[in-house]
């Protein structure tokens, strides 16, 4: 029998497969994982669903809890909410053909998320412009798009939550009214409309920490529909329907999925884009240090190359990038929606999230008590005594984290292989620290 257990809203751990190698412990960007000799793995409350541990585990003892596509019940109308990343997955096909393909594999209706990404870009430009006058939030402002990055900021850089712009993400903008519209259109009751988010991102499915997609009924990874869809698209290609779609308006949507695609569509010029978790952490450290205050806005994506590098994609991320480049070359990134209308709904508060990012830490109770100077001093002394090599035998990712666990009373001195076999001299030094055991 499979001995699975869930150790975070996102992670499933199989202790029978785990060898206790601690690769996951070291890979975790929020230092959330500890592992003990008996291979019991535990996470503290800081899982940000980035999936680094899943990617690095050499034995596949960790997996992410991915939902399957919901079975569509009788009489239900299934509506695909399509992430623009999907358009990067089929090099020979145009976005409109892909939408047609989705209908052929069973969706009754499709909604291109590109419309909402474009609205979001209008709103972002407006927010940045107004913030320059009001100085309400400190710069650089930070993109609210990537859910993993927002959780990373909550856990490791809560001071920077103030800099995350308080706008809804495109997928959150899909109004409740859309269900009403569709129910009128298809002549069925509202609760028979099933909105299904087709996404490259496993993190979207975890509805903790403000990322609740209240209007979306289900989510499915691009990888789950890929085969069926590509078979259908091949058939369509044979029938050559492409001439219908020569008039595709703009590649602004497909561009969104690529690192830099969000800011490329902004009027604000003083911006840059960072992708990949390690790079992101480096830049968040710098921002917290007080650098880049003269930059207006920074786009962050936790996946390398942006959402086209998401874990639920199929096509190689660099090939996907090439596909996007070709679309941009051919169709440009012109706007399809009116700014006037966007600004009108901006005034009505349409874009603003109910929860301010700066309130997230308080609401979700992710809070680490600060150390006293006395404890920090003990921690530094302990580190001087260990002079360790970050071996992780203790089960913590590095000596510094171990030392902090010890002074907080969450780990024992003897967990450290260096300290366990200490001489009398070292023992004296440790006793002098009078640590809680």
């Amino acid at each position, binding site marked *: 029998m499979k001995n699975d257990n869930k150790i975070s809203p996102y992670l499933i751990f199989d202790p029978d497969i785990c060898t206790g190698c601690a690769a996951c412990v070291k890979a975790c960007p929020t230092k959330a994982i500890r592992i003990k000799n008996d291979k019991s793995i535990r996470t503290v409350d800081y899982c940000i669903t980035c999936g680094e541990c899943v990617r690095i585990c050499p034995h596949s003892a960790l997996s992410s809890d991915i939902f399957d596509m919901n079975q569509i019940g009788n009489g239900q109308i299934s509506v695909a909410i399509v992430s623009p990343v999907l358009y990067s997955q089929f090099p020979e096909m145009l976005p409109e053909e892909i939408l047609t393909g989705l209908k052929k594999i069973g969706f009754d209706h499709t909604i291109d998320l590109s419309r909402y990404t474009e609205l979001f870009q209008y709103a972002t430009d407006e927010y940045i412009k107004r913030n320059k006058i009001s100085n309400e939030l400190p710069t650089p402002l930070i993109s609210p798009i990537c859910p993993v990055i927002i959780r990373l900021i909550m856990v490791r850089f809560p001071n920077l939550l103030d800099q995350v712009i308080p706008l809804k993400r495109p997928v959150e903008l899909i109004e409740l009214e859309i269900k009403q519209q569709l129910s009128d259109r298809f002549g069925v009751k509202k609760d028979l409309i099933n909105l299904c988010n087709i996404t490259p991102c496993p993190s979207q499915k975890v509805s903790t920490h403000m990322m609740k997609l209240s209007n979306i009924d289900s989510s499915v990874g691009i990888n789950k529909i890929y085969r069926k869809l590509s078979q259908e698209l091949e058939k369509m290609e044979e029938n050559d329907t492409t001439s219908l779609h020569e008039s595709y308006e703009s590649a602004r949507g497909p561009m969104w999925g690529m690192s830099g695609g969000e800011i490329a569509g902004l009027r604000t010029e003083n911006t840059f884009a960072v992708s990949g978790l390690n790079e992101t952490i480096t830049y968040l450290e*710098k921002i917290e240090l007080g650098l880049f205050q003269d930059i207006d806005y920074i786009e962050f994506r936790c996946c390398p190359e942006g959402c086209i590098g998401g874990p639920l994609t199929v096509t190689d991320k660099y090939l996907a990038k090439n596909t996007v480049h070709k679309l941009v070359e051919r169709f440009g990134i012109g706007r399809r929606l009116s700014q006037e209308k966007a600004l009108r709904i901006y005034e009505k508060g349409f874009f603003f999230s109910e929860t301010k990012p700066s309130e997230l830490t308080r609401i979700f109770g992710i809070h680490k008590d*600060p*150390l*006293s*100077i*006395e404890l*920090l001093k003990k921690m*530094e002394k302990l580190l001087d005594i260990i002079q360790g090599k970050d071996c992780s035998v203790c089960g913590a990712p590095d000596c510094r984290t171990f030392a902090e666990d010890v002074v907080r009373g969450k780990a024992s001195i003897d967990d450290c292989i260096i300290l366990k076999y200490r001489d009398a001299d070292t023992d004296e030094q440790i006793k002098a620290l009078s640590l809680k055991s």
Partner: protein
Amino acid sequence: MTDLKKIFHVKGNDFTHAGEASVNIKNMLKSIGLDPKLIRRIGVCGYEGEMNMVMHGGDGTLSIEINTDKIILYLDDNGPGIEDLELAMKEGYSTAKDEYREMGFGAGMGLPNMKKNADEFTISSKVGRGTQVKMVFSLNH
């Protein structure tokens, strides 16, 4: 009485690791729950100082002293020293090499920026011997 003092070594011309000492200092201050605005001021000062050492100062140290009433940063290098201190404190004055300016450094804001962000700022320098800077940040508001 000093509660805690920690010394970080900074290597001249090592741009790969430039800024690491400041990040470590920032994270220490974060762990004791210091006010984010104050952390940012101290962070900027540490970073500017560290970059100065990397660009001009040769090898040196960046140290932090955490006391219950104040935090002190010390910069101490054995670089070329500063010829005209008054001039060096002027915004926009820079002796950085062109190659560093191309990297986005050397805008002549380093020392003035440190002075602006610290509650107390003292500097002493001898040509051929090195430069020492002390910056005090008060914790009593």
